[in-house]
């Protein structure tokens, strides 16, 4: 069964460092999303992406964040200068029809 894959599964970084989280969406999907879940809190929408551009972003998705689809398969989330409060599980999701398919997540720990 096709699935969304994310790497790395866990990343530890120092405050102020840049991190890139990678996602390979399901191959025939056209709509891509990043969500975030801080430990013990709800799954929060960050950004949606279609046709090589952002279609909507939340208030969380400030200038420190960017997304890119550098080739036909990868979809990346970059955090330019990480803060302690960026520590969370980051989920990538993709969609062809109605439902979103989620990856297993990348846990980011900022020290």
């Amino acid at each position: 069964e096709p699935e969304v894959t994310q790497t790395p599964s866990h990343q530890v970084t120092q405050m102020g460092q840049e991190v890139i989280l990678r996602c390979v969406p399901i191959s025939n999907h056209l709509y891509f999303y990043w969500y975030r879940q801080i430990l013990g809190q709800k799954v929060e929408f960050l950004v949606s992406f279609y046709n090589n551009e952002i279609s909507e972003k939340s208030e969380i998705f400030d200038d420190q964040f960017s997304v890119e689809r550098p080739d036909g398969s990868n979809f990346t989330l970059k955090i330019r200068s990480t803060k302690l409060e960026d520590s969370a599980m980051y989920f990538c999701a993709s969609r062809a029809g109605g439902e979103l398919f989620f990856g297993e997540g990348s846990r980011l720990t900022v020290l």
Partner: protein
Amino acid sequence: EDKVVQSPLSLVVHEGDTVTLNCSYEVTNFRSLLWYKQEKKAPTFLFMLTSSGIEKKSGRLSSILDKKELFSILNITATQTGDSAVYLCGPRSTGGYQKVTFGTGTKLQVIP
């Protein structure tokens, strides 16, 4: 701003019990409502509801939507320990290329 309220926040039941999880929502340009089960990591899809009053079923799970009252329920009958998880609901809007806005979830624990 889209709003989703799930209740109860948490629930502990014994195996074999039936549970009802509630989800009320406010969203601009509603398209559908989705239910997910989150065990350890990734939310996994359960149901997508588009029309009012039509029950969707999958085994012991069922769900229904009321678009007039802006709520949905998820029922689980004859619960098993494997049903222990956080259940998320989220309306999908027509905007933002149909992002889903999730509630805080209901944490269900099924004890033997």
